[in-house]
Structures are given as structure tokens and as C-alpha cells.
């Protein structure tokens, strides 16, 4: 009994951090509609800044003022990010801003490395709260009790701010209808900045407050990201009490998981989420988003046309040129080109979902990594020949997409996105923790193609045929009746349903197809590298896909491929430098600000400005 209570108390104490960070994410999303990927980075900064302050400020007063100051400082950093990076891109198409926040993640990672070094730091213990009390014989740290006592007050203060003050009224109004709030004379940009400050400050506080329990390291930004997304989704988007309940639920379950089923701690969180969302699709205390038919932000996508005969000849000629690449004699170039084509196919499959279907999947790496693992497991566990493994990889990835798609498509918008992310993380944690079967962190090695493909040049030709074939297939489907039905379901679900289109089924099939093709990319990948590790299906990989699709241009057919090719090339070049993340992050931010319609979209606009005379449609 004593142990049980002690574990519940530990869980409640852990919930404090999770709640603080998650409520910040939820607030920022509610008002600005920005999915702030950099939220984990604010949390990490809070921990590091807090650590440095605690070195200087002594005693209990020093400790607690360090915590508050970290919140304040991180909040101000949030303001800098909002003003410099996000303000210029508010007018860009929906969700484009998340690319900018991804750039911020990279920049903050390297800045933290620069300032605090690569070593993990151990947080100081809180002065005056170093001891333990015995509850039914079990030791419980005093600091835990302090956290447990504090969190409800924070919840209450936030709740009061949002529901009972004038600022709260503005925030809630902006959550429902930004344009109307602006029309009523509220300075929207400062409201956004203010909310960003508050959200970032909460993340910073969360980072600082967990120092005595966890310390600070450079991986904590991504490590907490999935957990806070899960908390926000389980609690219900925009509900503070919901976020608190979900944080407690997840943290307490996690503590029990560690003691009783240590092999599945990571999976547990996602299982809980899946169960909650099956029963309550919009979270415990969330409500269905009444989006209304506002349509897309910005100008709608242009009508698409099948490629002209001339374009086809040009593409065919370029392909021949590409196939001749091994003749150049550079082994390095062939390997790089293989990588790029594989990444392009992955990006094209995500673009199919995102661009044509309007289905923003945050967890597309699940199918890439999934395909790779299916192939690798068939070879290593079942001794399957490469050819069979290669054929079954997309089947496996497609099956995963069928199941995940079915679960996720019951939701829409950001709930859909979050659920795809969480389920992808579920797959990742399965692979990561199921050591005996998947090799866990050590991955699966020694997976090589059959003899006829073992030469790098031959494998390159194989990659071109399969990879480019997949890209062309997706492109053709975009022009087929099915592709049109997919776009129709995105443009006006109401009209589509009223003219006989089963929109959910169309989207489900598109989701499965995109998953299967990502699986093909995964299979190409595993046999080109000879190995696969869990990071091929983790969040960062999914984000890479999202970044290139947005950078290339969501509303253009070739956006995904162009974005992927340029990103992979630049990354290959930059990773030779020590602080490549900083450089890449800054580059992404610059591109985002200069080309808010993506590379292809923005180039097209420039081209049109020079070629077309202004024609006023009559």
C-alpha cells in the first residue's frame, strides 16, 4: 500500500512539468494556429538557463527566483522567435509556419551546445526541500510534495487568467475567430506575441522546475515533444483542466509502467491515448472543432494539367542523363544520388497526402521506417530472399497505414495530425523497446541486396527505376479520377458527399497508398545502407518529410520532390561542418521568410511576374 501511494505521488510530481509545457503548447496553438515544434526547445532552454542561474543565485530564494527568471527569460526568447521568425510568415499557407519552428529547433540545439556543451548537467537539489518524508514507510522526496502542491495553483492561475480576465477574453475570442477580433480593433500581432510569451514562459518554467529531478541535456527537446503532444490530445485541445488530468494520467501510468512492465514504458503512453481517443475522439475535455467552411488560407491551389508532350520528353531526357551518372566514375556521387532519390520518393508520398489530400500527417516516417524494418526483419529473422523482402515491405507499411489511417481519419485537422504523430511514435517505441525481435537501439545490420544488385552502380539504376517510377506513379494518380476525388474531398467535403463521393474512404485509400509507397522508399533505403536503426521512424524523420514538402511548395505538384532534392543536397554539404544544425536552421528560416509559397510556388510567382502581362479577367 505504501509503495502504491509513493508511486502515485511520484507520478503526480512528474505531472507538474508535463502540464506546464503542454499547456503552453495548447495556448499557442489555440490562438495562433501554429503547431509549435520548437516548444520542446523552449523547455530545454528553461532547464539550461535555470541551471546557470542556480549556479549564481544561492539559497532557497535563489533557487525559486531562478525558476521564475528562467520562465521570464525563455518567454522573452519566445518573443524574439515570434517577432523575427513567425511574424513574416503569418500570411503564408496554413501550417507553413511549422517549418519555421523546425528551423528554430535546429538553431536552439546548436546554440545550447555552444553555450552549455555536450555534457549532460545534473540539476541542483532545491534548498530546504532536499529531504524525504516517510509515508507509510516509503520515502517520498519533499520536493515532489512541493511540486504536487504547487501545480493546482498554477492550473488555477492559468484558468483564472483565461476565463476571468480581459486578456483571457481576448485570447478565447482569438481562438474562435481571429479575423473578427482584429476587426473589433484588437491589435492582433501583439496578442500573438503576448500568447507566445506566455506559452514559451510556461515551457521554460517546466524545464527549470524539473531540474532537481532530471537535470538538463541536449536531447530533452525531442524527448518531451511526443509526450506533450499526447497530453494535449488526450486532455482535449485548448482545455487546461484537460491538460492537467492528462498529464497526471500519463505520468502516474508511466511510474507504474517503469516498476511493473519496464519493457513497454514508451508504448504505454500511446496505448492510453489510443484508448482515450477511441472513446472520446476529441480528448477527455475537448470539443469538436467547429471549423466551418472557411476554406484554405491564402490563394487556392491552381488547377493541374497533365504534363505536355514536350515536358515529358524533357523529363525522359533528364532521366537518361541521371541513369548515366555512374559513368562519371564518382562512387560518392552515386551514393548521394541514391539517397536523394529515396528521400524524394518518401517526400512525394507525403506530398500526395498533404498536398492533394489536405491530410497533414505528422508521423509519415512510420511507413518509411516500417517498410525498412519489415524488409530487414524478413531477411534477418525469416531468412527471406531480398526480392521477397522488397516486395513485402510496402505491403507491411501499407497495412500499418490501413490501420493507423482508419484510426486517425475519424478525426480532422490538428487532431488528425497529432494522432498520426502519436501512433507513429507507438511504432517507434515498439521497435525501440522490443530488443529481442528488432534489436532495439542497435538496429538490424547486415541486410544486403542479392548478388545481382550488390554493386553500388547497379543498385543506383535499380533505385532510379523503382524510385522515380514511384514518383511518376503518384503524379499520374494525381491526374486520375481517384486523385481528383481526393482533391474534391479536400476542397469541399460537403459538395463531394452530396455528389456521391465517400470522402472518408477516398482519404483512407490515399493514406494507405501513401504509406505503401513510403514503404517502398524504406525498402530501397535499407538495402542501400545494409542496416536500419529506430531513428528511421522517429519524429525527426517525419519532420524532415514535412519540412521538405512545405519548403518545396504544398500547392504545387512537384513541390515534394524539388524540396526533398534540394534539402538533401544542402544537408549533405552542411553536415561536414561542426555547427551544421545552426547553419541549416538559419537557412530554413531564411527560405521560409523569402519564399512563403515554397520554392516551386515562389519561383512560379516570380516567373509569372516577368512573363505575363496583367490580364484582367472579364
Amino acid at each position: 500500500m505504501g509503495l502504491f501511494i509513493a508511486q502515485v505521488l511520484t507520478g503526480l510530481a512528474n505531472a507538474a512539468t508535463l502540464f506546464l509545457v503542454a499547456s503552453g503548447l495548447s495556448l499557442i496553438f489555440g490562438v495562433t494556429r501554429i503547431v509549435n515544434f520548437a516548444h520542446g526547445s523552449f523547455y530545454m532552454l528553461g532547464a539550461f538557463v535555470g541551471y546557470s542561474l542556480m549556479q549564481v543565485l544561492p539559497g532557497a530564494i535563489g533557487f525559486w527566483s531562478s525558476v521564475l527568471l528562467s520562465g521570464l527569460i525563455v518567454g522573452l526568447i519566445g518573443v524574439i522567435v515570434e517577432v523575427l521568425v513567425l511574424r513574416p510568415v503569418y500570411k503564408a499557407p496554413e501550417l507553413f509556419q511549422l517549418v519555421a519552428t523546425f528551423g528554430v529547433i535546429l538553431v536552439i540545439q546548436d546554440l545550447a551546445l555552444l553555450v552549455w556543451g555536450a555534457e549532460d548537467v545534473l540539476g541542483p537539489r532545491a534548498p530546504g526541500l532536499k529531504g524525504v518524508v516517510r509515508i507509510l514507510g516509503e520515502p517520498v522526496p519533499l520536493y515532489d510534495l512541493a511540486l504536487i502542491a504547487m501545480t493546482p495553483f498554477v492550473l488555477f492561475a492559468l484558468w483564472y487568467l483565461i476565463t476571468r480576465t480581459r486578456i483571457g477574453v481576448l485570447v478565447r475570442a482569438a481562438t474562435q475567430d481571429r479575423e473578427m477580433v482584429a476587426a473589433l480593433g484588437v491589435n492582433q500581432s501583439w496578442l500573438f506575441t503576448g500568447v507566445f510569451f506566455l506559452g514559451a514562459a510556461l515551457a521554460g518554467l517546466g524545464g527549470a522546475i524539473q531540474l532537481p529531478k532530471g537535470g538538463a541535456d541536449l536531447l530533452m527537446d525531442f524527448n518531451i515533444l511526443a509526450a506533450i503532444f499526447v497530453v494535449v490530445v488526450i486532455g482535449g485541445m485548448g482545455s487546461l483542466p484537460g491538460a492537467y488530468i492528462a498529464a497526471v494520467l500519463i505520468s502516474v501510468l508511466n511510474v507504474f509502467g517503469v516498476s511493473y512492465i519496464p519493457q513497454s514504458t514508451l508504448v504505454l503512453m500511446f496505448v492510453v491515448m489510443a484508448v482515450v481517443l477511441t472513446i472520446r475522439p476529441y480528448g477527455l475535455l475537448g470539443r469538436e472543432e467547429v471549423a466551418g467552411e472557411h476554406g484554405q488560407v491564402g490563394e487556392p491551389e491552381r488547377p493541374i494539367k497533365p504534363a505536355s508532350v514536350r515536358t515529358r520528353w524533357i523529363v525522359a531526357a533528364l532521366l537518361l542523363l541521371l541513369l548515366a551518372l555512374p559513368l562519371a566514375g564518382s562512387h560518392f556521387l552515386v551514393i548521394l544520388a541514391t539517397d536523394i532519390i529515396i528521400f524524394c520518393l518518401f517526400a512525394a508520398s507525403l506530398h500526395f497526402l498533404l498536398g492533394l489530400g489536405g491530410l497533414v500527417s505528422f508521423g509519415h516516417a512510420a511507413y518509411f521506417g516500417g517498410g525498412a524494418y519489415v524488409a530487414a526483419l524478413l531477411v534477418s529473422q525469416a531468412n527471406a530472399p531480398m526480392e521477397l523482402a522488397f516486395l513485402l515491405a510496402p505491403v507491411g507499411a501499407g497495412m500499418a497505414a490501413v490501420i493507423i489511417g482508419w484510426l486517425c481519419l475519424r478525426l480532422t485537422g490538428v487532431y488528425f495530425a497529432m494522432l498520426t504523430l502519436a501512433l507513429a511514435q507507438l511504432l517507434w517505441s515498439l521497435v525501440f523497446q522490443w530488443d529481442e525481435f528488432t534489436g532495439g537501439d542497435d538496429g538490424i545490420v547486415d541486410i544486403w541486396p542479392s548478388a545481382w544488385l550488390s554493386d553500388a552502380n547497379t543498385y543506383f539504376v535499380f533505385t532510379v527505376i523503382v524510385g522515380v517510377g514511384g514518383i511518376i506513379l503518384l503524379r499520374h494518380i494525381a491526374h486520375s479520377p481517384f486523385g481528383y476525388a481526393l482533391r474534391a474531398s479536400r476542397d469541399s467535403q460537403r459538395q463531394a458527399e452530396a455528389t456521391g463521393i465517400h470522402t472518408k474512404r477516398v482519404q483512407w485509400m490515399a493514406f494507405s497508398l501513401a504509406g505503401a509507397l513510403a514503404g517502398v522508399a524504406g525498402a530501397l533505403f535499407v538495402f542501400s545502407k545494409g542496416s536500419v536503426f529506430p531513428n528511421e521512424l522517429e519524429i525527426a524523420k517525419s519532420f524532415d518529410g514535412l519540412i521538405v514538402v512545405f519548403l518545396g511548395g504544398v500547392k504545387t505538384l512537384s513541390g515534394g520532390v524539388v524540396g526533398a532534392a534540394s534539402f538533401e543536397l544542402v544537408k549533405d554539404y552542411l553536415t561536414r561542418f561542426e555547427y551544421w544544425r545552426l547553419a541549416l536552421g538559419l537557412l530554413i528560416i531564411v527560405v521560409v521568410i523569402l519564399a512563403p509559397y515554397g520554392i516551386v510556388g515562389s519561383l512560379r510567382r516570380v516567373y509569372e511576374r516577368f512573363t505575363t502581362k496583367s490580364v484582367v479577367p472579364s
Partner: protein
Amino acid sequence: MSEQNAMQTGSGSVLQVQSLSKSFGGLQAVCDVSFDVGKGELLALIGPNGAGKTTCFNMLMGQLKPSSGDVFLNGEKITGMLPRKVWRKGVGRTFQITGTYASMTVIENIQMALISHHKRLYSLKPFATRLYRDEAMALLELVGMPEQAERACAILAYGDLKRLELAIALCHQPTLLLMDEPTAGMAPRERIGLMQLTADIVQQRSISVLFTEHDMDVVFAHAHRIMVLNRGELIANGSVDDIRNNEMVQQVYLGGGSVFASESDDA
């Protein structure tokens, strides 16, 4: 009212609505509404904002499930059936606020509906733009906008969007058209034009039409019969002359703002 109903049910009605009701929480939006739509009939459903017209429409085509009551299409019960299934049974619909595919051209919008009608939605092989072009073009000519075929739908004027929606609704040769405020948001002259066009088309093809409308000129000029809905209840049902001279209707429409203390959109 029951006499009138009995009178109109006689000659092969297309749609039969029997004591349809819908309540949202405590609000009784539609209350015990019954009527028939005769073959080839242009039936207008009028009433002030918030009377329950759109709610009624949404229940007929399955966008909303009725709380009680039944809907029969050509004798087959379609109560609560999904919109896409009702559509397959031969019911077309246009919306109060247009819903077209902004990323496609005008003609592609129609081709999309034709593809659905010919059950080729899941086909991966042909180019969609090349399917049923002639049929789509014929429909565009019918609604008088063939020269707009290749324009992006996103840049159409509102009146043209309404006409496009009409063309889309005609794709599967419906026996019944439900038109929710077909002329809302259009200039007066365009309104008459569009309604005249609709009347001509449905007469040629003997399609029945149920439509809601706020413009009395349009209603009196084209409707064969008029029903008046107020606060969810059908208060009158009769010929154009009957309704024009009906005191209760005059009360509802002209009797000052007291009928509805606060007018809200009936979306």
C-alpha cells in the same frame, strides 16, 4: 391543410415527407412537417430567417438525422440515409453557400460529379480531365457558361458559382432537385434569370424541384405551389394566389419585426 395534402398526393408524388421533426437540445427547429412534392412540380418553401428551412433540407438529404418522422423518395424510405446515398437515388442539391472545388477548373468540377455518377471514382488509369468532357460541356452550355469552362473555379463571380452548382446538380439526371436559396447573394436581374433558367431546364426534363427563397418576386413568378414555414411549423400550403392572400402569411412576413425578436441566420 390536410385537404390540400390529400389533393396533391394523388398524382404520383416524387417525395413524401411525413411528420418530420428536429430538435437541437431544447430548440424545436422543425416540428411535425408533412408535405409531398409532385412530379415535375416547382415547390417553394418560404419563411423568415430561422424558420427551419435549411434544417428541413438537411434532413431530406441526410446531412442531418431527423428526431422523428419519415422521408420517402418514390415510395422508398430514405430517412436518415447518408447524402451520398440519397444522391445515388437521384436527388440533386445546391447549397445556400456554394460548395465547389476551388482548385479545379469549371469544367472539371462538373466532370468530377460525372465521374462519381459513372462510378469511376477509384479508377487510377485514365486522365480525369479527359473523361466525360462532352457531357460536361453540354451541361455548361445548358446553364449558359461554356466560355468559362477552362477558368479556375476559384476566380468565378458568385452568380456563376451558383450556375455551376446547378450544372453539377444536374449531372446524374436527378428526378428531384433540392435548391437551398438558389439566388441568395445575386443581383436582382440575375436572380430572375437563374430561376427562369432553372424552371426551363426542369420543365424540359420533368424534374421536380423543392426550393427555398427569400425573394418573393422569384417565388411568385416561378413556383407552382408554396409552403410557408414559421418557427418550425408549416403554417400554409397552397397555390401562389392562396399564399399571396393568406392573412397569416402576411402577418409573418409583413407584420413587423415582432415575429422574431432576434433574427439569426438559418444555416
